[in-house]
């Protein structure tokens, strides 16, 4: 599904991501962990086209997307959420998802086209909202949702774009303890029932252990280890770099 080879990004002489290579198989769930500043979010920005690649390549489903822009990558099936909650606070929950559905289905630029509830984008948005359990709150302003619900909304937005590969950047960040279980369940559903390939940056190890097929550990911009959760947590080098402090 995703092949990353020798991916490097240097900005102004500072190497942010250094020679990272890994493959993600279709339907796989790979978690990315590492201390703060290890380059996890930068890696995501490289994959989604928000940072320029200095060297190396990114291949999505057989197509080289190393130089493709973010919009192009999104159209090719790469969807992502952001570390900071990234919903359109001024739009309603439903409008947030409908915008995404509209982006995938096309026709956004037909300037004078009125929106009708019979539109396909309406239907797709409704289904995505039901999947994450926000169907009953569709007409609230997105800004009024709780942190956990905003994360669910982001997932619904992603689902509406029907991506093949989903990048989740710290979905649990800022989410209250009570909401973590519900959100984990929604993410698991997206992975297993919707059959999405998932790449997720996360700090909560307990969440990852139940979800991830493999865990990638980043340290100082490089990939330190990539293995099953059990083997990664047992790796002395990983414990030295990260888990020793974090756990």
């Amino acid at each position, binding site marked *: 599904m995703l092949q990353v080879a020798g991916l490097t990004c240097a900005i102004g002489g500072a190497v942010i991501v250094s020679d990272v290579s890994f493959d993600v198989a279709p339907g796989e769930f790979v978690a990315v962990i590492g201390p703060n500043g290890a380059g996890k979010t930068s890696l995501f920005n490289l994959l989604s086209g928000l940072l320029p690649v200095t060297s190396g390549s990114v291949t999505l489903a057989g197509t080289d997307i190393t130089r493709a822009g973010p919009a192009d990558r999104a159209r090719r099936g790469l969807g992502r959420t*952001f570390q900071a909650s990234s919903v359109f606070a001024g739009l309603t929950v439903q409008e947030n998802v409908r915008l995404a559905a509209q982006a995938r289905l096309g026709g956004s630029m037909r300037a004078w086209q*009125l929106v009708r509830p019979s539109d396909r984008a309406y239907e797709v948005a409704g289904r995505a909202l039901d999947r994450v359990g926000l169907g009953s709150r569709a007409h609230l302003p997105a800004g009024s949702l709780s942190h956990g619900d905003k994360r669910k909304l982001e997932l619904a937005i992603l689902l509406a774009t029907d991506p093949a590969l989903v990048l989740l950047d710290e979905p649990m960040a800022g989410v209250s303890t009570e909401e973590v279980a519900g959100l984990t369940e929604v993410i698991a559903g997206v992975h297993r029932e919707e059959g999405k390939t998932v790449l997720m940056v996360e700090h909560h190890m307990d969440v990852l252990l139940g979800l991830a097929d493999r865990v990638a550990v980043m340290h100082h911009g490089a990939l330190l280890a990539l293995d099953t959760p059990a083997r990664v947590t047992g790796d002395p080098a990983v414990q030295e770099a990260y888990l020793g402090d974090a756990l």
Partner: protein
Amino acid sequence: MSTVVLLTVTGLGLAALYFLVASGLSLIFGLMGVLNFAHGAFLTIGAYGTWWAAENIPGAGATGWGFVYAVAFGVAVGTLVAAVVELTLIRPLYERHIEQVLVTVGLSLALVALVRAVWGADPRPFPRPELARGTTSLLGANVPNDRFLLIATAIVVLVAVLAFLRFTRFGLVIRAGVENRTMVTALGIDVRRAFTLVFAIGGAFAALAGALGGIYLGSISPGQGTSLLIFAFIVVVIGGMSSITGTAVAAVLVGLVQQFANYYAASGVGDLSVVLLLAVVLLTRPGGLTARLA
């Protein structure tokens, strides 16, 4: 009493002009962060386009439907120029804000100079349709009809823009883009394409303001748009930079303050009090009256 009524309606008429110019500025800034200093030139183009059409195009004229055709021509030229400017000058400079300011300031100077070279620097008498020439008695005041024409046009534009943003697919893209451009792009929507249309719509409103400004002032001159632009920018800042309703409220505020201060204090104090109003709003509410779109 009749003075207050007259000042209020005239202030609202002025507010209508400010709103027409400022609404485009605010959408353009909100969507792409572009400060369009050439916006005043679009107003001048709309005014001269209307004036030229009224004299030279068969069927168009200074009265009745002929005048409507003339205005339509002026607005069409303004829209076209705005679209061409966006595609050829602004588009290559996306995200390069200093260069954008330089190019739009330069363009504004060049377009005004071009108009001056072709039609001279002296004011030209502007055709005033008979409907706008009369007065209407309102609460004891004889209010010139052109004020009502200005106010009605601005209200129609305001309602149309709000409906466009609210009820069309494209409007959803614009509202989302104003809130967070990066996220809209991440969804796979090319915001730049939306921006060309927004820029052209802004140009159309500015050109319409040019034609209406001509009726209001009775004459047009090349520098008119640029001097109106300063107040339009103040309106945009007071209104919260990227909010249409905020811009409308700010336009009313600025128009009324300017009229009343000019009358009750001294001529010229109006401009000063508008700048003071700007300072007060920025000191008490740094984000403007509202920081969100509609």
